[in-house]
């Protein structure tokens, strides 16, 4: 299953679907970083609203995506973690330490706008 990546100015928006396999996640990881390079993006928003389960592999992949993108000098914001998914992640002992999160896409964009303003 392909993850759609939308370009909105200097920001790339990747929207996760419910049923992502490990292979899909790995594919996305490479694809996103390549697109950040190609478009000279300053930030990536990963929208996980539709994700039904965030297990150890998915959260590790998200952390890796965020770290790789940071090495490119861009920002990553994870948006839309559902309350039930967040609860399961905490029970499982998973963290997204060092990765910015926001309530939804709108809040994610607002966070980035604020950030770009202060760094300019």
């Amino acid at each position, binding site marked *: 299953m392909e993850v759609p990546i939308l370009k909105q100015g200097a920001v790339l928006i990747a929207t996760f679907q419910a*049923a*992502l*396999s*490990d*292979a899909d996640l790995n594919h996305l990881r490479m694809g996103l970083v390549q697109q950040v390079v190609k478009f000279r993006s300053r930030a990536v928003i990963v929208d996980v609203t539709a994700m*039904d*389960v*965030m*297990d*150890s*592999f998915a959260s*590790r992949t998200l952390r890796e995506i965020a770290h790789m993108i940071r090495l490119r000098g861009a920002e990553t914001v994870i948006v839309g973690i*559902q*309350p*039930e*998914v967040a*609860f*399961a*992640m905490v*029970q*499982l*002992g*998973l963290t997204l330490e060092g990765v910015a999160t926001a309530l939804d896409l709108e809040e994610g964009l607002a966070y980035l706008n604020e950030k770009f303003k202060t760094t300019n």
Partner: protein
Amino acid sequence: MSAGEIRVAINSDQDIVSARQKGRAMATELGFSSGDATLIATAISELARNIVSYAGKGQITLKMVNGLNRRGIAVIADDDGPGIPDIRQALRDGYSTSGSLGLGLPGVRRLMDEFEITSEPGRGTIVAVKKWRQ
């Protein structure tokens, strides 16, 4: 196979997704809240992942269980893989031999109400977990 029992063969990462989707559907059908169904689906995802990472293949069995005045779901993950030499160590947070996961079993234990593991080096591993409806 009796009614109320589903078996999912786990051979690849794609099967992890289908096992957890079937588990969520069954949990919902059994009247679990959507929050509990998410916990169950997450546990199934981790158990199926252990099968793929450590044994290569195995199966997940989902079934309805009846307790005293309560109903629940049982998830049994079994494989014929290398087994776990030190179960106590495997149940400690942070333990991993594949270098990537490490939180699997203790995490699954926290997600569910009951947790049982049997493993024999060279013969395989069976992890059986249950969650009761609140």
